[in-house]
C-alpha cells in the first residue's frame, strides 16, 4: 500500500471535522473524494499533506508515519495543490519552477528547466510562460498550479478541487491529462471533486464523506442512489450509458417535466 489512513480524527477548537477516517490507496490508483459542503474533504487533504496536524490516528506513506518523516523526503513523494491559488508578481515559468524545490540543492539545474519546459508544453501553456501570475485569469492560475505539481514529480498527488475555476473543456482536459500522467508515470492521485459524473470518468475508487465520517469507500458501485442520498440529501438515478454510469439528480427530471 502506498498510503494508509488509519483512524484519523481532526477537530478545530469546539468543532469536530473528521471522525475516525480510515482507507487505503494502492500505487497508481486514482481516488476521488466526494462529499457535502463542510464534510471535511479539504481538511482531510490538509492532514494528508501535513498542513494540519492530526489529533488522533495516523497516516502512513510507504509504511512510514508521515509526521515523523523528514519534510524534504516527504516533499519528494507528495505534492499538494491547494484550493485557492496565490496571485503574485512571479512569471508562470518561475512559479512552475518552484515545483522543483525538493530537487533543487543550490540552484535550479538545466534538468529542472527542462522539466518545467516539458510540463508547460504538455499543458499548452508555452505562450504565456513569461507572463506574470497577477495578469492571469482564474482558470489559467489553476493550470499553473497543476503544472507546478507535475513539475514536482511526486508519487502521490493531492488535489483540492483541481477543476474549479476551469471551463467545461479545460475541466476534462486537465482530468484527462492527470489521468494520463498517473497511468504513464505510476503516480497516485487523490482529488476532491464535486461533479459525480466527472469523478466517475476520472477515478478508480471513490470515498464518500458526510459530515466528517465515511459513508462508503470502493469502486464505482458505491455511487448508488442510496449513498448519494445519504451524502447529499437528494435523490438521484444512476443509469448506464455505453457501460459508463451516469448520475442524474431526480430534481432535474422533475423540473424538466
Amino acid at each position, binding site marked *: 500500500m502506498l498510503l494508509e489512513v488509519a483512524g484519523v480524527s481532526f477537530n478545530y477548537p469546539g468543532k469536530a471535522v473528521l471522525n475516525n477516517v480510515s482507507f487505503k490507496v494502492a500505487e497508481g490508483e486514482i481516488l476521488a473524494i466526494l462529499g457535502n459542503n463542510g464534510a471535511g474533504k479539504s481538511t482531510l487533504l*490538509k492532514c494528508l*499533506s*501535513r*498542513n494540519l496536524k492530526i489529533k488522533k490516528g495516523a497516516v502512513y506513506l510507504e509504511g512510514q508515519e508521515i509526521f515523523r518523516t523528514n*519534510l*524534504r523526503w*516527504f*516533499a*519528494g513523494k*507528495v*505534492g*499538494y*495543490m*491547494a484550493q*485557492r*491559488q*496565490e496571485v*503574485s*508578481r*512571479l*512569471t508562470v*515559468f*518561475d*512559479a512552475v*519552477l*518552484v*515545483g522543483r*524545490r*525538493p530537487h*533543487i540543492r543550490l*540552484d535550479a539545474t538545466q534538468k529542472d*528547466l*527542462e522539466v518545467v*519546459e516539458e510540463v*508547460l*508544453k504538455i499543458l499548452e501553456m*508555452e505562450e504565456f*510562460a*513569461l507572463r*506574470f501570475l497577477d495578469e492571469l485569469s482564474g482558470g489559467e492560475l489553476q493550470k499553473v*498550479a497543476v503544472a*507546478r505539481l507535475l513539475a*514536482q514529480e*511526486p508519487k502521490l498527488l*493531492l488535489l483540492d478541487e483541481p477543476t474549479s475555476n476551469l471551463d467545461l473543456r479545460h475541466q476534462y482536459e486537465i482530468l484527462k491529462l492527470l489521468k494520463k500522467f498517473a497511468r504513464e508515470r505510476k503516480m497516485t492521485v487523490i482529488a476532491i471533486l464535486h461533479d459525480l459524473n466527472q469523478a466517475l470518468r476520472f477515478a478508480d475508487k471513490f470515498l464518500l464523506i458526510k459530515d466528517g465520517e465515511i459513508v462508503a469507500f470502493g469502486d464505482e458501485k458505491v455511487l448508488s442512489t442510496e449513498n448519494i442520498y445519504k451524502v447529499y440529501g437528494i435523490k438521484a438515478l444512476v443509469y448506464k450509458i455505453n457501460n459508463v454510469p451516469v448520475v442524474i439528480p431526480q430534481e432535474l427530471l422533475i423540473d424538466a417535466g
Partner: protein
Amino acid sequence: MRGKTYQSYLWQKVLFLLVLLVILNIAIVFALNAGSMKLGFWAVVKGILGKGPDALKTVIWEIRLPRVAGAVLAGIGLGLAGNVQQVLLKNPLASPFTLGISQAAAFGAAFSIIVLGAGSYQTGAEAKIYYANRYLVSLTAFIFALLTSLIVLWLGKVKKLAPEAIALAGVAIGSLWASGTTLLQYFADELKLAAVVFWSFGDLGRLGLEEVRLLGVVISLAFIYFYLNRWNYNTLITGEEGARSLGVDPNKIRFWGMLISSGIAAVITSFCGIIGFIGLLAPHMVRRVIGNDQRFLLPGAALLGGVLLLLADTFARTVISPVILPVGAVTSFLGAPLFLYLLLRGK
C-alpha cells in the same frame, strides 16, 4: 525554443542589476565629491585609491567615506529587510518602518538614554550627543525591535490575523511605541531629552568607521542568509500550504526571516536613528520592474536601497549647506509623495 527565451529573460534581469550597480557606484563617487571642499571626479577616484596629497586622503577616507559607506550599507540593509518582510507577511506595505519595528528601536534607545543613563547631550562649543555606553543603546534598541517583531509574528500565527490586518496592527504598535517614547521624554531632564530627540532624527553623521564595519558584517551575513533562502521565499510566494509539500516549513522560514530582518533594522536604527520609507520603497520599485522572483529582487532591492539612501543623504548634506539636514526627514519628505505616485500609477 522556450528555454532560450527564458534564458534571455533572465539575462534582462541580470542586466537590470548591473545597471543598478553602476548607478550605485556613480552615486558613491558623486557623494564623495559633494561637500564644502570641492574635489572633482578624478581627485575623488585618486583619493579612494589612496593616491594624492594627505589632506585629500584624510577628507575622503576619514570624513566622507564612513558616511557614504554607512549610507550605502544602511540603505542596503533597509531594502533587504523591507523586501523579506514583504515576502514573509505577504504584504507590499510591510517594512521595518510600517511594522513599528523602527519606532520600537527608537523607544529602546530612548529608554536606555533616559532610564538606564546610557547617553546625554553635551552643550558648549562642541554640542553633540555623547554616549556613556553606546552598545547599551544599540542593544536596548535591538531588544525592543525584536519584541515588536515577535508580536507581529504572534498576531499572524496564533491570532490568525490576515496579512492586510498585520500591516494595520504594525501601524498601531508603532504609534504605541512612539507614545511611549513621548512619555519617557516628558519625564526626562533637558540634556537627556535633547539626546533622545537628536538620536531619533535619523542621521548618518554619527557613523564612525567602527560602526560602518559592524554594519558591513551584519548586513553581509544577513544577505547571505536571505540569498540562501531565495528558493524558499519563492516557494512561500506561490502559497503557504503548497510550500510545506515542497519541503519548506513556512513557520520556520518566517520566524528566522523576521528575526534577522528585524535584527538588521534594529542595528541600523540603533546606529542611525529612524530612517523611513527606504525599506518600503526600494523593494516596491524594483518589483515593479523585474517582478517578485527573489533570486533577483533580493539583490535588486538591496542595491536600490543603497542608491536611494545615499542620494537622500547627499541631498540632506548639500541642499542648504553648510547646514546638514537629518536624513530621516529627507527620506520621509521625498519618500511619501514618491510612494503615493507609485500607488496611483499602478492603478
